[in-house]
């Protein structure tokens, strides 16, 4: 499909045009900015929890309020920050990477953004401004805890409604991405030449299409139970609360891969560029991602080992199997760096930080895949640390890597490398000081989701360290915001291809024109921009 055939758009500017634009780049930026704003809210909630837990003895919050903090923190970070940031990057990058003028369904794209934003606002509202009680039942809202008798008030209802809107938005985005990639590629951009980020987003989107509808059904049944006397999860009436767990985790575990695979894609775009080598084992990498996506649909009940209501060996085996393709990816990444002329701009540092953190998160995940260990560590701080090593140390480091890598493409301006390296140092040190001690606290038996803990039980030092680490990370985020501000106030022009990048977006201007490309170069490999810029040279 030719961009020359793309229909013309009239130029629009101003806030209203941003909020009503169907241009995939504007919607992508809106997604990223909105998601980052939610990250600041979720991070503030985390800070409130770390403040409470820095010392034993209750200081600031009632137990119910604390329950609300971790409920909204978890929901915000998972559904309103990491996943939508991936959607934002996909919106911005996929048409550029495949040589399309826009997403397949521009209006649907805008609708999904507004569903996400309004759902996110409802979720925040459910925690703070709900008559009769906010949402305080944890981000997976198991009945009977989430049923009307145990969680009264309208807060949980608003939370369910908000989550429903966010889920519908995710499904719409998934439909858009799959259709765009399958049908809107430029001539020569075969599936086996797709940039890895785009490939990963296709797999993520298919996972979303598979996983979100069952969870939506579960939440709809929960809503009916709370508001209209539904009995699907009431054992006394023949219902079964474990069904909700199945429906939720059929989303909940693929969701972990929905969160992390986009950023596998991000660092796979970054590492080869800064190693000055092609990706090591492109085909193996794609097949490994397909394997991860497929296997992730068969592991949901490893979150339910302790219910005694699932087949533990089946889910343990499926979960352990996922470690194999994930290990393949680590070979791809290290192989891509091996023997390369590696340079270390901020995006590369965050990518390497991702690898180190995610490796720890992955290895502890393999440990938890064994039911015997899971029975011991379930609902302890060990689990909290494992989860944050994958999601924060992995996905969030991937997000920062993506920002430092593609910000010049999106704005035409550079971020400051020295400030970026300070951001990385603060984030990396702060992250590990925050979450490594939580492994220790968990192994000593500290349960998660408690507002207080006893003195002299071995929990004080890990918790104090965690709270101090949070402060270091928060300073890192402030440095990052300062970096954005400096870049805006004293712009340094980026040029079209500041990194000598590989994929097609580096073959157009920074920022790209409204129709994306004035001319698409011939696509003869998975590195068309590199081929274009090094035509005639060995490469």
């Amino acid at each position, binding site marked *: 499909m030719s961009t020359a055939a793309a229909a013309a758009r009239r130029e629009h500017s101003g806030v209203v045009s941003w909020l*009503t634009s169907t241009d995939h780049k504007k919607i992508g930026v809106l997604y990223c900015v909105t998601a980052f704003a939610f990250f600041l809210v979720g991070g503030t909630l985390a800070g409130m929890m770390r403040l409470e837990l820095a010392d034993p003895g209750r200081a600031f919050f009632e137990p119910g309020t604390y329950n609300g903090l971790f409920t909204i923190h978890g929901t915000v970070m998972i559904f309103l920050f990491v996943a939508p940031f991936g959607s934002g990057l996909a919106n911005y990058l996929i048409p550029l990477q495949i040589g399309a003028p826009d997403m397949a369904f521009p*209006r649907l794209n805008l609708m999904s953004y507004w569903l996400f934003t309004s759902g996110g606002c409802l979720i925040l509202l459910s925690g703070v401004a709900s008559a009769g009680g906010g949402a305080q039942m944890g981000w997976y809202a198991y009945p009977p805890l989430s049923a009307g008798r145990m969680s009264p008030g309208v807060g949980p209802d*608003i939370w369910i409604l908000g989550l429903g809107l966010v889920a519908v938005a995710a499904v719409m985005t998934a439909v858009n991405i799959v259709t765009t990639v399958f049908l809107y590629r430029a001539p*020569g951009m075969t599936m086996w030449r797709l940039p890895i980020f785009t490939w990963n987003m296709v797999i993520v989107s298919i996972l979303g299409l598979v996983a979100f509808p069952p969870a939506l059904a579960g939440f709809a049944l929960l809503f009916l139970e709370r508001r209209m006397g539904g009995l699907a999860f009431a054992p006394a009436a023949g219902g079964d609360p474990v069904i909700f767990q199945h429906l939720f985790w*059929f989303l909940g575990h693929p969701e972990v891969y929905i969160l992390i695979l986009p950023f596998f894609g991000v660092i796979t775009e970054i590492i080869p560029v800064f190693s000055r080598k092609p990706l090591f084992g492109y085909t193996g990498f794609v097949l490994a991602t397909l394997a991860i996506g497929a296997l992730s649909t068969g592991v949901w009940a490893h979150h339910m080992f302790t219910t005694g209501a699932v087949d533990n060996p089946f889910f343990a085996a499926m979960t352990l199997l996922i470690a194999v393709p994930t290990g393949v990816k680590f070979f791809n990444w290290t192989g891509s760096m091996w023997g390369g002329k590696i340079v270390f701009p901020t995006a590369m540092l965050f990518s390497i930080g991702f690898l180190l953190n995610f490796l720890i998160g992955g290895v502890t995940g393999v440990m938890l895949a064994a039911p015997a260990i899971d029975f011991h560590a379930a609902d302890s701080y060990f689990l909290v640390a494992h989860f944050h090593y994958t999601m924060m140390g992995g996905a969030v480091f991937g997000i920062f890597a993506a920002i430092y890598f593609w910000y010049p493409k999106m704005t035409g301006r550079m971020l400051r490398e020295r400030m970026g390296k300070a951001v990385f140092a603060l984030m990396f040190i702060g992250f590990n000081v925050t979450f490594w001690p939580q492994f220790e606290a968990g192994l000593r038996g500290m349960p998660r989701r408690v507002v207080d803990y006893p003195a002299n039980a071995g929990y004080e030092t890990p918790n104090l360290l965690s709270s101090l680490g949070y402060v270091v990370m928060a300073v890192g985020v402030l440095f990052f915001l300062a970096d954005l501000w400096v870049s805006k106030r004293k712009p340094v022009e980026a040029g079209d291809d500041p990194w000598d990048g590989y994929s097609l977006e580096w073959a157009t201007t920074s920022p790209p024109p409204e129709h994306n490309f004035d001319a698409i170069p011939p696509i003869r490999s998975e590195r068309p921009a590199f081929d274009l810029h090094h035509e005639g040279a060995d490469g």
Partner: protein
Amino acid sequence: MKPFVRYLWVLTAFGLGVGTLYWFIAHEVTGAVLLWAFGLMPLIVGLWALRHGASRNAPVAPEDDPNADPSTDAGTSVGSFPAVTVWPIFFVLGLLLAGAGLIYGLILVPPGLALAAFAIHGLMRESRQ
């Protein structure tokens, strides 16, 4: 056959296969149904694609041809893209109003649904222009 249809068949086989395996191992209904439904979803899309020209005998599309030149489909119409639209916002407002009605009072549901329907009508009219 378009390559993406092949991926859909693989997904179908995986979902139905793992669902069946799970059923024989775990004898648990919810998970088995979820996995079988996962297999059926790409089957439906794949069959639809086959009926609409993605068959084995269809000519190779430029995007699937590794030697295709960028000019191959120059001039192919891709339709028109709206620069801005307000209808999605009205649609979401309608949904919010209807959703609020489920929580605060059913009287809000009809105007919410009416607003959403009005927005859909607007979207359809706009897309035909």
